[in-house]
């Protein structure tokens, strides 16, 4: 048990280090997120009433797209340089491997997006009472996006231009998260039924994704 834990922390620590290093793309997703959401007022016009109405939805769409940005490298980088062979041959169960990868992805992509979203909420004039519910919803919902993304990333790991296919596979699956997430933000309560549904989606993907992604990784080893 202790051995499993120490192998998992070794992998997590390495993934966090890699993302912090030059070329790791640690903050790219946040910058992309800020740019995409900042473009909304240019597109729909600076009218305050309209912006505050669509703010929660735009932030969620921005988060979904930004989370997608770094997903294609989730397993691809390790696959290309042979690290994935080592990971498959280590004592780490495949499910645990996927969980660690998703945790690292969420910590380096999901969490920074959540931290950045209050700034964008001000920019889009999100009504005061909605910021709390929005943040709680993001906190509960973004792990599901990493986990769903891992399924797509593991299925496309051997493909040269897998990134585009990955988006096509993963985006439709993110729709429930988006629906419940926006509903949760508009519920004006910190823990509404929509939050619970969002949590249910996350818990469900927590079970399904390690199994599915682990199997897909095994299938793609050549």
């Amino acid at each position, binding site marked *: 048990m202790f051995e499993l834990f*120490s192998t998992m922390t070794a992998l997590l620590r390495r993934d966090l280090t890699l993302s912090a290093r030059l*070329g790791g793309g640690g903050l790219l997703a946040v910058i992309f997120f800020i740019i995409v959401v900042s473009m909304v007022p240019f597109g729909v016009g600076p009218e305050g009433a309209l912006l505050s109405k669509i703010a929660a939805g735009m932030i969620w769409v921005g988060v979904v797209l930004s989370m997608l940005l770094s997903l294609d490298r989730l397993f691809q980088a390790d696959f290309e*340089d042979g690290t994935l062979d080592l990971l498959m041959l280590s004592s780490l169960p495949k499910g645990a491997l996927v969980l660690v990868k998703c945790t690292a992805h969420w910590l380096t992509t999901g969490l920074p997006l959540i931290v950045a979203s209050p700034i964008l909420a001000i920019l889009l004039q999100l009504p005061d009472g909605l910021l709390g519910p929005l943040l709680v919803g993001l906190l509960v919902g973004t792990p599901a996006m990493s986990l769903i993304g891992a399924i797509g990333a593991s299925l496309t790991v051997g493909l040269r231009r897998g990134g585009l296919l990955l988006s096509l596979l993963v985006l439709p699956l993110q729709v429930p998260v988006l629906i419940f997430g926006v509903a949760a933000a508009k519920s004006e309560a910190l823990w509404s039924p929509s939050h619970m549904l969002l949590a249910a989606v996350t818990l469900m993907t927590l079970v399904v994704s390690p199994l599915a992604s682990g199997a897909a990784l095994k299938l793609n080893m050549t």
Partner: protein
Amino acid sequence: MKLIASDITCFRGGRHVLESVSLELASGVASILRGPNGSGKSTLLRVVAGLVDHQEGKLSWLDDEGREIGEDDALHTSLFHYVGHLDAVKPSLTVRENLDFWAGLYGVPGDVETALQTLGLGALAQVPGAFLSAGQKKRLGLAKLCLGTRPLWILDEPSVSLDVEGVALIAGLMKAHCETGGSLLVTTHVDIGLKAEALQSLRLSVQGTLKVEAPENAQKENAQKESNNV
């Protein structure tokens, strides 16, 4: 302890890459795998490592008394080191950080210093992987062999892009491994320097069949080759 592969058949991309391949990797014996390009040498190594699934046949470990010691994957993968074509070096991590990660993965964090010294990477410990030459990267990849003692080494062209000292170094490591009772499955053209009785020659054909040449035959062949050279 030895690994026995019996009647392994591997079907990939619409053709038989391996056609009922049987081999025995006994303790103290270096098995040199040869064959033309595209005959499936790397695939055979990956099948033995369990990285590529085979459709028929099985891999089993026997202890010294010839009893089978379990078949589960976790046991299998803990009994060998695999170093393939790709060296798994991360460009943005230093040599030591790369080794630290592998050692953490294998659960032997104490072996990093030995690995650095053995492969002559001590002076490069703080250099990022991106600045290493192909040969230095290969050395770093091979340093994995020093992370924990495991009975079987599976090496795919370990001498590629190494300099003369590097080739001698890896040949020495392979020799020492076999002499201390380890077994070895390797695709290489390098002379390991082992006696003929500790060598097993495996020849893979393009059709995917494997011919195992007993040590005596290999010896005869070598003698013949030498006489031809003269």
